[in-house]
């Protein structure tokens, strides 16, 4: 067994055992922060599926919000269990993503222009949620109708945080698995070629539109799933935390910080941004509202210039280079 694999297994065992380690009254808080890291890392990973191939979306909040709101509304108004409602929400979001992505692909809206289109789409979804206040609760947000018991499998509502800890751990692992599958597939090669030059990609026989729509659908589906999980855990949805520019940029910040070209980059970046905002919140309370965002913004600029493959990606690259250097020195 390789050292890397051993470390991964040890980490997994530690994560699985974590909820039962005594934490001197801090358990609820630690679990809460960890659950958030899992959920947002999963969403960041979903974003990076597109981002790493040059499809930079600044509107993933749209997918997140659609997923979270669709599942919540179906439960609140029709009593549809989130097990089914979540699937409906994911399907709906994929449909929406395709409606946005098809014309972009057809009319060759690429790069900065694609980012601008998605930015607008995210904002449109946020404004729609606010405008439809009769059933979405507008900018006040919406609370999930509580289940009758403290632990309801049908409603996916549990008072015990540990249930959501394991649920979000599994979903996070699912995200990593999908990332790895894609990374080893021909679709990755095709997407890399498309990201470099669409005309050249088409001229070697790659169905450009199909691959672009496919990756967009996958990314949107996973993002919507993250939104459903978020809604179930917080039992509250709000247009500002789940749709619009703010949340879309937050996803991008975290992924760029950690590194969008590597498996664990989004996770490392998300953990760092959440740790930073928690730290600032605990130290400064509400005195410096917007401080975290200011720091993210500065970091983002520095990272794009100096460490384009992120903290995790660069560290891994460095290690790998050192290893090959050592190998060539001993040889």
């Amino acid at each position, binding site marked *: 067994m390789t050292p890397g694999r051993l470390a991964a297994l040890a980490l997994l065992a530690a994560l699985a055992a974590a909820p039962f380690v005594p934490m001197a009254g801090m358990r609820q808080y630690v679990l809460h922060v960890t659950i958030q890291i899992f959920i947002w890392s999963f969403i960041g990973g979903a974003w990076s599926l597109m981002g790493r191939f040059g499809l930079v979306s600044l509107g993933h909040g749209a997918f997140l919000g659609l997923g979270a709101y669709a599942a919540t509304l179906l439960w609140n108004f029709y009593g549809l269990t989130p097990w089914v409602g979540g699937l409906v929400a994911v399907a709906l979001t994929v449909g929406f993503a395709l409606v946005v992505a098809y014309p972009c692909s057809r009319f060759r809206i690429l790069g900065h222009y694609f980012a601008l289109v998605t930015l607008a789409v995210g904002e449109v979804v946020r404004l729609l949620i606010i405008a439809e206040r009769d059933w979405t609760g507008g900018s006040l947000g919406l609370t999930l109708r509580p289940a009758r018991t403290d632990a309801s499998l049908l409603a996916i509502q549990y008072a015990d945080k540990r249930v959501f800890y394991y649920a979000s751990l599994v979903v996070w692992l699912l995200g990593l698995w999908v990332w790895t599958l894609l990374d080893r597939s021909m679709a990755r090669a095709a997407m890399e070629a498309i990201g470099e030059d669409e005309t050249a990609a088409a001229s070697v*026989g790659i169905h450009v539109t199909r691959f672009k729509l496919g990756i967009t659908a996958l990314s949107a589906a996973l993002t919507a799933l993250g939104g459903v999980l978020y809604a179930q855990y917080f039992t509250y949805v709000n247009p500002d935390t789940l749709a619009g520019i703010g949340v879309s940029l937050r996803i991008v910040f975290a992924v760029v910080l950690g590194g969008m070209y590597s498996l664990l980059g989004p996770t490392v970046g998300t953990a760092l941004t959440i740790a930073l905002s928690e730290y600032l919140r605990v130290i400064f309370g509400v005195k410096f509202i917007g401080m975290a965002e200011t720091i993210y913004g500065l970091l983002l600029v520095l990272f794009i210039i100096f460490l384009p493959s992120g903290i995790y990606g660069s560290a891994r690259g460095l290690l790998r280079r050192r290893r090959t250097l050592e190998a060539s020195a001993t040889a």
Partner: protein
Amino acid sequence: MLELKNITAGYGHFTALWDVQLRVARGEAVAVVGPNGAGKTTLMRVISGLIPSRAGELVFEGESLAGRPAHDIVAHGIAHVPEGRRIFPALTVGDNLRMGAFLPAARQAFPESSARVYDLFPALAERQRQRAGSLSGGEQQMLAIGRALMSRPKLILLDEPSMGLAPVMVLRLFDLIRRIREEGYTILVVEQNVRQVLKLVDRAYLLEVGRIKMEGRAHELAEQDFVRKAYVGL
């Protein structure tokens, strides 16, 4: 093998090609020559499906291919080496060739087709692991041709292969194209270097302002006073 009947095509309101008739027989090398803006690149892009034709027929091996998308055309055996090479600069030379063999049938034959490409272009074999963007212009053009060969085409479209290359490189490149020809590929080439290309091909078409002005055996065309004055510079 390939027959274009009354092909008309353009961009938006602009018509770049009018009623183009063109034929390429199996095993033939055919050139399309003409000044800048004559519609040569448009013609190549119509054949390879990168832009749709507005009217006319495009028949390849008895099958009508008009209106088919680019990836489908490749699957039918037409490989396009686009103008300006358009290699994947961030991928390695080896990965560029791998992308050329993207379609399932080509992927299966990858080992032998890559061996053949490396045999034709030994310079590429030496640089297999190098980023394609770091190659010289001539090597990039060879890579672009090599990548097209990887799809195991029956017909190769070469769009301005000599563009931006040093004169010595141009001569070497035409030698290589001659070798590819001798291996049995059918070639349709668009060139501005009329003198060189007419030595390479069997027949040629003269395209001016979107219309075919003249066609004939390459040596006959080269001897026409009109062509010599306008394009060959003699």
